[in-house]
């Protein structure tokens, strides 16, 4: 048996809450986070609903204890990563080999966009302070430095599966004894770059998204950050709090079909789910809940659903897409949903898939539409698929 990897702390900030408790409360009360853009200045403000964190940069900076001029992605990352570390109850991690593995897709793009306006007119103009944190890795370092973590720092960017891969890589480092503690997850702020990019692909729903519904029209783009603290058995033995769960399985595969579209049969997602089951030594019937990637696009939901059918038929576990609450937080979505998966195990909850009305004609199953409480949830599968065919599945298990 490989060494277990315990989930000992959680942190999250999203459109449905500024910390884990607020997120959980919104999930239990079926309160989604989408609405009109308030903090991102864009010509699409009135037309494209988004799921924004309900705080200005100045408010986030004060929560993060960082200067407000830096990227919003770094501010979100800082708030969630610090919450996750605090949640472990560990006063100090400096006696352990500790890593910070963070994911994002936009880096400091929110500031670069501002820089580019004067810069395009005259390339000697634009404040360098607005572009100095452009690189994805810089966002990670701002947070790592503030947390005092330096043994291993890296950044992963595989589009919408980025933070699932960060958790995956962190688990590998613990399993192989390279590190004792890993803070892993991801962050992405809303930017005009991503809003416009997804808009050109015509996969944004003009209303609140409806994952896995026959009449789904697309995704709602969103922002947020979430981290888990993973620890080795040795560290776990020193903690006074019980772990949320273990990370028992993980697999990453590539769809190798198209730069942005998923294959109709969900080849990559099938391989990721199957591989994660194999790694955990579980059978499909052992899974008590699937937290779907479920973006709400025609393409993803059909592809993911077809792969689930192939793997799980005829015994379908309860499933839902919590993107019906949070929207699609891109680089943060894998870890945000990992936090929700850990909470599902801890509290015996299955979250509803909001706004579901009409079953998809291609699929023999439908998602859960109301909160299920008091369940025995032993194993949760969480899916994250992204551009470039990058597909990852994680399995969390009761410890």
């Amino acid at each position, binding site marked *: 048996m490989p060494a277990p990897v315990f989930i000992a702390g959680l942190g999250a900030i999203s459109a449905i809450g500024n910390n884990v408790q607020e997120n959980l409360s919104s999930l239990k009360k079926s309160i989604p986070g989408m609405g009109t853009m308030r903090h991102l200045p864009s010509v699409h403000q009135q037309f494209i609903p988004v799921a924004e964190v309900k705080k200005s940069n100045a408010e986030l900076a004060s929560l993060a204890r960082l200067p407000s001029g830096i990227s919003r992605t770094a501010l979100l990352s800082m708030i969630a990563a610090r919450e996750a570390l605090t949640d472990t109850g560990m006063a100090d991690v400096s006696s352990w080999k500790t890593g910070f593995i963070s994911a994002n897709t936009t880096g400091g793009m929110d500031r670069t966009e501002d820089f580019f306006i004067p810069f395009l007119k005259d390339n000697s103009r634009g404040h360098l302070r607005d572009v100095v944190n452009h690189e*994805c890795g810089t966002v990670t370092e701002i947070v790592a430095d503030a947390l005092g973590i330096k043994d291993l720092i890296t950044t992963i960017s595989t589009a919408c599966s980025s933070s699932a891969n960060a958790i995956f890589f962190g688990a590998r480092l613990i399993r192989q004894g390279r590190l004792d503690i890993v803070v892993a997850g991801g962050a992405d702020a809303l930017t005009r770059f991503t809003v416009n990019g997804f808009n050109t692909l015509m996969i944004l729903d003009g209303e609140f998204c409806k994952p896995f519904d026959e009449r789904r029209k697309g995704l709602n783009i969103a922002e947020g950050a979430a981290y888990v603290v993973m620890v080795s058995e040795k560290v776990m033995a020193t903690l006074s709090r019980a772990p949320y769960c273990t990370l028992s399985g993980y697999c990453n595969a590539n769809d190798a079909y198209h730069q942005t579209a998923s294959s109709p049969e969900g080849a990559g997602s099938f*391989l990721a789910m199957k591989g994660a089951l194999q790694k955990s030594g579980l059978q499909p019937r052992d899974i008590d809940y699937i937290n779907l990637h479920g973006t709400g696009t025609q393409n993803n939901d059909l592809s993911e659903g077809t792969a689930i059918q192939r793997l799980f038929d005829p015994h379908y576990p309860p499933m839902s897409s919590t993107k019906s609450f949070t929207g699609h937080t891109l680089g943060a979505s894998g870890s945000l949903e990992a936090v929700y998966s850990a909470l599902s195990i801890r509290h015996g909850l299955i979250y509803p898939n909001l706004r579901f009305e009409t079953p998809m004609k291609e699929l023999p199953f439908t998602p859960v539409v109301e909160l299920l409480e008091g369940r025995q949830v032993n194993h949760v599968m969480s899916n994250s698929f992204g551009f470039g065919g990058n597909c990852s599945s994680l399995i969390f298990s009761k410890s």
Partner: protein
Amino acid sequence: MKTYLRAMGNVSPQPTYGRREIPLAVIGPTGNRMMAMEPDYKELIDPKMLRRMSRIIRMGVAAAMECLREAALQTPDAIITGTAYGCLQDTDLFLTRMVEQHEELLTPTAFIQSTHNTVGAQISLIIQCRNYNNCFVHRGFSFESALLDAMLFLEEEEGETVLTGAVDEITDRSHVILSRMGLYKPRDFSGELIGSTTRGTVAGEGAAFFLLGRKPSVQDYCTIDGLKTFYKPSNVDVAGNEIRDFLDELKVHAADLDLIITGKNGDASHDSHLNEVVQDILPGIPSLTYKDLCGEYPSSTAFALWMAAGILRKGKVPATKNSIAVEGIRRMLIYNNYLGIHHTLMLVTAC
């Protein structure tokens, strides 16, 4: 965690594509920028795909395909890429149109190719590889992280082979911005980069890919015996101790090293710091530089590994301007320092 380096491919500012060692005629920098010499892509990449690919994607795909061709391998068990800046040309294009057209009438191609994982994704698409695929984007640790993931993947026996590498590009605009940040020598710089007494370096770019195996094969260049990164060492002594610990852990004495490749980049203060560390910990060992060949960029250690592997296969340094009279080279240490923040150590040994 010994890993076998079986094959490689390199697109760089030197004519390295299709070669296994540093070419005899070395091309120096013109001004403060060294541009990659791109191969004829037509024989490698389907023209329909090629037309849509930006420079970084072309360079990355070409280096990766060259590597797989040398390995005579169709499908590796994993593809792991590193890139610090990602696809700058496509990012720049989409961003510029977005600003100039006030977010109206945009087209998706540049956006969908702007994501950092595009190079790895395009490789998997071309060779129809559905296996493990990851992408690291951490500044001066981008290649190192990809290499670490590759080594851990093999260590965990998840597969037998990994295609791993790194790619970064310079664009006109990125060069302007980084120049304004004070990274480079003046635009009209000429002369020898290494040994320069002024501040600043010369910008570089390139793509280098490697096929790593869990088990030895008859065609291996060398083994990668150890990899270590350390972050923001507070002073020269701390950096020295990290190097000492690395060698101790691998049970290697300084005297066992035949050659060191260092990341000197021509910036006087950067290089004097590097000199101090190396002379203190590893006195008297012959050393080579590589950034006079590829320029300075965050994932340049991939070029250094390519160069080290070529030297180890022959056992000697090719007669370039870098040449030093050492033969029977069996074991080398690569030590890079990027902006004083990201420090890298790699130990490589001949097979």
